[in-house]
């Protein structure tokens, strides 16, 4: 039981890149950037410099200006800040929001909270491939719509939404667009200079950076304003109060910098590995079904339904590989995935679906071993099960 775990759960969280960890450790120790960046003295100024450099690094990956990046404690906070912040700030203009049923819990729960606070939310359904089409967004727009929130890449099935198309629709109608890019930054090219996106959430730990740090892009031109989620101290242009963790920010900056340098080669490598994984699984388990659009997908995520067996058992039987059923943030409650249900998979197929997500440190050997284990355990469990 003590064999090495094969980690294929990069979409839940990524290991910190050693180059990132080195920068962070340095920041925590020798370089003395430990001081409070809000302090006036020399250590404070040094910490501030490190924070601003990281801000530029994050901005550079996504074609933003450094001044448009607000650091937060993570993508969940970014989503909360973007959606609650915009909804409250612009509530005089209207109290209607549009989002989709396949968003991350951070967006779903935030919108549900706003419903309780008296806002109206339209919940878009994805098409059979798991995509939210711009035309569907357009049809849902109303005169009192203030914000649309649609994710870039779905965390469970890896499909990529056409946010350029959605942005054209919302911009033309003068409605703000928020995009959760926690799963896409560093994997899919993003250029906020050309995209009509007003708010975009990022995560550190989905891109080989530390946990507990994220960022929100807040467009300056045309200017977007927000009611802050947290008050006191007025850090981050008043949009996010609280002493910033310099080492965390530095880690995120370095992670985004590395992603910018390595994105093209890395995407190519991961696409090939993902294809290898899918071909292997399909050969081992011919009954296996791919969840989500076959081509419009991010490089690292593969979601597969395994008919005829129970999901938790498969997950545990494959204990040597770390994967997820549904997204990690929902796996604790063991509900059949809402995303897969939205795609039209029944409870049983949704329940026996597994998300494999590969990343920077995944090897050919690991993919082959995973295929072997899943194939073997699938057939073992299938043999154990009664006919039906």
């Amino acid at each position: 039981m003590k064999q090495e775990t094969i980690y294929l759960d990069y979409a839940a969280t990524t290991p910190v890149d050693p180059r990132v960890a080195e920068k962070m450790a340095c920041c925590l120790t020798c370089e003395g950037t430990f001081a409070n960046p809000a302090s006036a003295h020399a250590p404070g100024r040094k910490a501030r410099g490190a924070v601003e450099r990281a801000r530029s690094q994050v901005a550079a990956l996504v074609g933003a200006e450094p001044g448009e990046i607000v650091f937060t404690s993570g993508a969940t906070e970014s989503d909360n800040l973007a959606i609650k912040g915009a909804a409250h700030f612009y509530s005089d203009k209207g109290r209607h929001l549009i989002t989709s049923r396949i968003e991350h819990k951070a967006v779903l729960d935030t919108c549900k909270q706003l419903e309780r606070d008296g806002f109206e939310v339209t919940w878009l359904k994805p098409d059979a491939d798991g995509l939210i089409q711009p035309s569907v967004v357009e049809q849902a727009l109303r005169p009192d719509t203030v914000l649309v929130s649609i994710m870039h890449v779905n965390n469970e099935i890896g499909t990529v939404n056409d946010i350029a198309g959605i942005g054209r629709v919302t911009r033309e109608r003068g409605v703000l667009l928020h995009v959760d890019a926690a799963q896409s930054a560093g994997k899919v090219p993003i250029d906020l200079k050309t995209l009509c996106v007003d708010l975009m959430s990022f995560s550190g730990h989905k891109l080989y950076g530390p946990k507990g740090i994220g960022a929100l892009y807040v467009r300056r031109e045309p200017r977007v304003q927000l009611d802050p989620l947290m008050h006191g101290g007025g850090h981050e242009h008043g949009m996010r109060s609280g002493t910033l963790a310099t080492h965390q920010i530095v880690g995120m900056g370095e992670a985004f910098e590395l992603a910018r340098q390595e994105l093209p080669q890395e995407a190519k490598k991961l696409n090939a590995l993902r294809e290898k994984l899918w071909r292997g699984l399909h050969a081992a388990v011919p009954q296996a079904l791919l969840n989500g659009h076959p081509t419009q997908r991010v490089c690292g995520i593969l979601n597969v339904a395994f008919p005829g067996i129970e999901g938790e058992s498969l997950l545990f039987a494959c204990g040597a590989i770390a994967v997820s059923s549904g997204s990690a943030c929902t796996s604790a409650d063991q509900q059949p995935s809402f995303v897969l249900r939205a795609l039209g998979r029944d409870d049983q197929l949704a329940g026996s679906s597994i998300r494999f997500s590969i990343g920077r440190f995944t090897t050919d050997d690991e993919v082959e071993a995973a295929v072997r284990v899943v194939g073997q355990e699938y057939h073992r469990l299938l043999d154990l099960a009664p006919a039906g």
Partner: protein
Amino acid sequence: MFPGSEYNTEVWSHFRAPRNSGVFPADASGVVAGAAGARKHGRAVEFQLQVNAAGTVVDCRYRVFGCPATIALCSMASEALKGGPLCDAARYSVVQLADRLGLVAEKRAAAIVVEDAIRAAVRRYNNNSPPQLAVVKFTMES
């Protein structure tokens, strides 16, 4: 908090290598079977008991669709019932077994399904004595 994360080594071992799994050959004598649960509800169990003329359970087989706890409970129950009198099988509490193993409350449903399948098999025996009757066809939702 995390179903499964607290499975102890005993549960784990039975899940990894279930004992007595499968079905008896069609021509095996003294076999009664019972079923409970449904796939669409997440767990389904078919349990077979082989009973001799003296009313002793000489062997068990089962087929199971479900979570690791359901599989392990089938395996452990089959071990426990083997060699005992059928009247004990009728009273055997899989729910108590689950509690002894420290399974979380949500897994009680798994124990109930396994228990129901065993009791259904015992009922077949009682309704169809003499026991030499061939394999009893069971009905199952699927």
